[in-house]
């Protein structure tokens, strides 16, 4: 493991480095799923390099993005982060991105997200987190529900999908809800019911 901050059973989180830019663009290049936003979008490592460097310019940071790595083979498989950090109101918005498609559905994303939530609640001491998902992205909505997020409303006409304007679902999460959800997730893993 290189520069780990949060360590799980199979996954660890480390600070994103400029050298990860090629890894992000590489994941974008082989993306085939269309459920997340409007669809896949190619990206350049040059743009990611600039964005990553900028993450560390602002102190205190308004966004914190981790590289998600598999402990085995130390492989970079995506990002989890908290954005719009407001240390006065102690709130932020979480987001995640895992790829390529073959690494999804194996529980890595859930494990990485619980590590991120632990960082947000127990290290940054945030009070509430929010998350936003297009209504068509039922997969991410289901994942948020399992992580303890509660539905907080629908933002009308949030984006375009399938030739029409679609709504976005907003979720919020408090620490005690996350603690309960994590306990249920750990129990289900121990019982071997699911790896998700």
């Amino acid at each position, binding site marked *: 493991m290189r520069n780990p901050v949060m360590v799980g059973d199979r996954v660890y989180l480390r600070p994103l480095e400029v050298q990860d830019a090629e890894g992000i663009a590489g994941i974008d290049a082989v993306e085939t799923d269309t459920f997340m936003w409007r669809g896949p979008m190619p990206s350049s490592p040059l743009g990611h390099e600039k964005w990553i460097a900028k993450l560390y310019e602002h102190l205190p940071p308004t966004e914190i993005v981790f590289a998600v790595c598999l402990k085995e083979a130390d492989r970079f498989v995506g990002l989890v982060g908290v954005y719009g950090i407001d240390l006065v109101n102690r709130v932020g918005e979480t987001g995640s991105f895992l790829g390529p498609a073959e690494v999804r559905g194996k529980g890595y994303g859930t494990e990485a997200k619980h590590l991120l939530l632990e960082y947000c609640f127990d290290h940054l001491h945030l009070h509430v987190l929010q998350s936003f998902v297009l209504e068509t992205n039922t997969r991410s909505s289901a994942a948020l529900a399992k992580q303890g997020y509660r539905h907080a409303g629908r933002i009308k006409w949030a984006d375009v999908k399938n030739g029409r304007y679609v709504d976005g679902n907003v979720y*919020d999460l408090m620490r005690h809800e996350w603690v309960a959800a994590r306990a249920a997730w750990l129990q289900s893993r121990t019982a071997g019911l699911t790896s998700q």
Partner: protein
Amino acid sequence: MMEAMRIVYLTGEHVYLRPLVIADKDSASAWHPGPFLMGAAQAEKVLKDEGAGAARRLALVRSQTDEIVGSVKLTSNDGFRRCWVTFHMAPSTIDCDALRAEALRLIVRWLRDQMEVMVVSVEVAGDEEETIAAAAELGMVLSARLREFVSRAACRVDRLTYQALNPRWEVKDA
């Protein structure tokens, strides 16, 4: 010069809106969001950077005294088809809820009814009663409630998202 900047269609009884100008660097505490301090040199840089950016920030000015009492940022990433309205009120303004409510009425009527913006969204703290009443009066719908999202001196309150859906667009989408 400031009088010439007054936007005639965004002028109400107690408050009006105008573009920010370099001279406003000396009153950054009134228009720049957040509780942290900003001096004139940094404010000048922010004004120039923001002026060149995609979002538009307008000064909220008290009509009677021409004093800046806050600002409003208009954000759109699709050429003003959808627009987010974000208020910041000066910490020294006592009647900020009433002034924000009046400004919201001006802005929503302008964006929805004249600019034909499809949906105008605004975030309001749960204890900003006059602003909430103005949103309801404008026909805005409560779209989301984030629990305990805003910190106050001795408590926390929810953050509400209100949206004005333009019926002209709604009919076409139906």
